[in-house]
């Protein structure tokens, strides 16, 4: 996943600025850009990874090589190749130390997902929207008890986030500024797991602490 900010410069093509909405995009998602000096020029479209990192992303066919190069530029990158390299490195280090656990891969992936969520809580889905979890697929307006009490007492309830006439909103363009700490907000699209191919490693030693 790549974090794109609207208005950011395209790497290596500084005259181009991003016009697509900001957010977390798939590495290969297409981002619309425009010439900063000449707005009459028609827009151009590049992949998110190219916008962020430039042509280096096309110089390596092996994700390990690509990930290593991206990490040199951006140690905290959430590009799938960078994530793959980080996870691989971590697991290899654990194996070298003899501390590799059966859950190591899942733990590493979860850690990356957490990191990605912290960086950008509301990724921009590429195509169709995945079904929301049950709580949010409800067609009923989202009002709280206080609002309903106010209604029954005749006072005008605060305008619900979703009108009673409208279905639950599609999640095609979530507000990137949504409060990530709101427990009722469940991530609308689960960030894709990094592509990691790992053999199940035999635990050589285990310390009981």
């Amino acid at each position, binding site marked *: 996943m790549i974090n794109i900010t609207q208005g950011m410069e395209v790497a290596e093509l500084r005259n181009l600025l991003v016009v697509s909405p900001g957010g977390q995009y798939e590495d290969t998602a*297409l981002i619309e850009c425009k010439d900063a000096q000449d707005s009459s020029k028609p827009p151009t479209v590049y*992949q998110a990874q190219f916008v962020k990192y430039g042509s280096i992303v*096309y110089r390596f066919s092996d994700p390990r090589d690509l990930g290593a190069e991206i990490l040199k530029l951006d140690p905290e990158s959430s590009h799938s190749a960078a994530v793959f390299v980080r996870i691989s490195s971590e697991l290899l280090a654990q194996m070298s130390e003899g501390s590799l656990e059966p859950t190591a891969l899942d733990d590493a992936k979860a850690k990356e997902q957490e990191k990605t969520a912290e960086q950008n809580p509301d990724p921009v889905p590429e195509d169709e929207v995945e079904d929301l979890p049950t709580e949010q697929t409800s067609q009923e307006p989202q009002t709280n008890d206080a609002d309903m009490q106010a209604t029954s007492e005749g006072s005008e309830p605060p305008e619900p986030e979703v009108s009673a006439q409208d279905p639950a909103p599609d999640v095609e363009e979530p507000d990137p500024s949504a409060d990530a700490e709101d427990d009722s907000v469940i991530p609308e699209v689960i960030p894709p797991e990094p592509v990691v191919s790992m053999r199940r490693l035999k635990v050589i030693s285990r310390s009981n602490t």
Partner: protein
Amino acid sequence: MALRAVEHIFTGLTTPYASYDPAKTNLGVLIQQRTGATALDKYAGPMPLGLARPMEASTAIAGAYPHVIPWDSDNDWVFLVDNGTAAATRRVIMYNYQKSTSTFTWNGFITLTFPTATNHTVRGFRMNRELYTTGTASVSGTAVTGSGTGWNSSNIPVGCRIGFGSSDPTQIATWHEISAIGSDTSITLTASAGTISSGNYVIEDLRVLVSTTNATAANGGVYMAKGLREELFAPAGTTISAASTTDGLRAVYWLADAGTVTNTISCGLAIDARDSWTQHYIYIIDGTTTTCRVYKYNIRATLGSLSSGKSTSAYVHVTAAQTPTGTVSQTNNGRIDTLSHGPANGVKSLYFVTTTRVYRAAVANLTSGNATWQSDAMVEVAPGGASTYAATGALSSCEIASQIDRLIVISTGTAGARSYVTKYNTNSDPFDHIFLVDDKQLDQSIADNDAVIHPAINATAFSVWSEGGIAYLCRLGTAATTNQMYAVPLSAHWTYAAGSANQRLITPAMSTPSASRLTRVYVNATRHIGAGTVGLPTEPYRMYFRISGISDDSGEWTLVTEDGGFTDPTPSTEIQFMFEFKVIGAFCIPARIHGVTIVYEDDTTDSHYQPSVAQSSISSKVFAWRFSTAFGGTVPTLRIRLYNATTGSLLLDDTTTASALGTWEKSTNDGAAWGSYNTTDKANDTTYIRYTPTSIADNIKVRALLTQN
């Protein structure tokens, strides 16, 4: 007569055969004379093989489906497309191939950003380069003004390069990039070109065409990148953006057949010649079996209603499905050309393969909804028939070698299946040639230095493009061990050497003064290239000679026998040799000729005899010779000629078999006793022969000449 030898070493002056010169070595189109530090480096023959290693370039990209554009007489642009794991982008690599040195130079690559971000696999790849030179142009700064030009209406895209001062791109010293096309007579450059008065110019319109299949089926189809130029193919790569809503830019456009694309099972992309600046057709074979049909697009159509880089404006029509026999391969399958033989003589046709057949579809039949668009097919029958080589049943693609008017039919290479070069026929005749072998040699850079590069099959298909007689064969591997591209002078093959493109090596005229008999010719050639276990033999050659019609190249050629002997020609004062080479073979390693030597007898005394003063007699008019060198068998018929040494007139001409004008005798004891002449070989060092004319005038000076008859 004495034995003489005349030698020619291939180090002297040369001339193209088209400018025939009997005083020089004459070289056919693909024949070269090379030099170097050692004697082995100095030779003549078909150009040596060239080799490129895409996976060992500074950016390793597995390359496939070569497309070649000739730049000048010595250089070809060679393009490959990304054959790596399917991805949302595909890269296109560019090499320069210099024929005089057989050297590939990796220029770099571009990356195509497709308007769909799902994973593409390229099934067909072509490059297209058109030169626009209509009218004249002048420049002031970045403003270019045309006269008699039609830049906008000819759909020249932004991003192309333009050069001034000539309409020949090889003569352009400085290229400029087009940043905008205002009208038919107005262009804006990206940077100032100074002031240039009105004159010739050239715009180079370079495009990439790919047909893909996609992980999301409806995202496959035909894509075109336009507005390209050579300089974009850089070592660091240049990324071409996806198009959006505007035509005529440097971008990747999706040429869709419909809102939801149906051209989703592409097998290859065939490109026809351009009809006009607004009409240029390509054909996509779609479907491998029961749904096999052909889509037609106009790549120079104005792309209207562009949305997210996609337009249906280029789409023309699609035939109906017609099931072929066998399965149509999806490896750059399909080529348009006009052969000059067989059932397709003079008919522009689309040629493609299934696993078991080569199909032909006349282009004129590729019409909308036509369910009988396939014209005919050629069954795979290997040379020698099925009892010599089993049919592979694994045909992969075909290419047309225009210079020799033949098809190059490539197999998948599975289980070492070989490939073919052949005429097109529909009567089940065997193919003409079979070539390549699977000897498993790896031609990566770390291979043994003594190994010889050659296109080994390695159980992998090749893809091929033929340009100017050179077959560019790219093995479709994806690793450094197996992804190589070879330049093979295929059309120099001896079967076609006398064709419209002469592919012969012809020596200068070699002087044979006073030759009375041509004895033998010896060739100094490299028979084995490389060294040790990994060395390989070259392909064979054959040699011809002529002793007349040398000065004006009118003489007929006669084949020299394998032992270098001659079939009793009447010698002349000069002789000339010609070589033809086998190239379509197992290893395709052309022969290298270092030199040729002709040995002949002249009109001096035969070298087996020495005139003997002691045994001759002026008074008795006896002429004697010592038998100095044995023949190694029966003595051939000897001939004596007596000349008036003063006037040169011939006084007597007789042979040992006729003995009409004198007596032949022989002595084996130093002349102590003379007996009848016989043809027994030399017995000892005291063996003599003598001749006594029956009648000869007195008081004349006589020169006696003893030769073989």
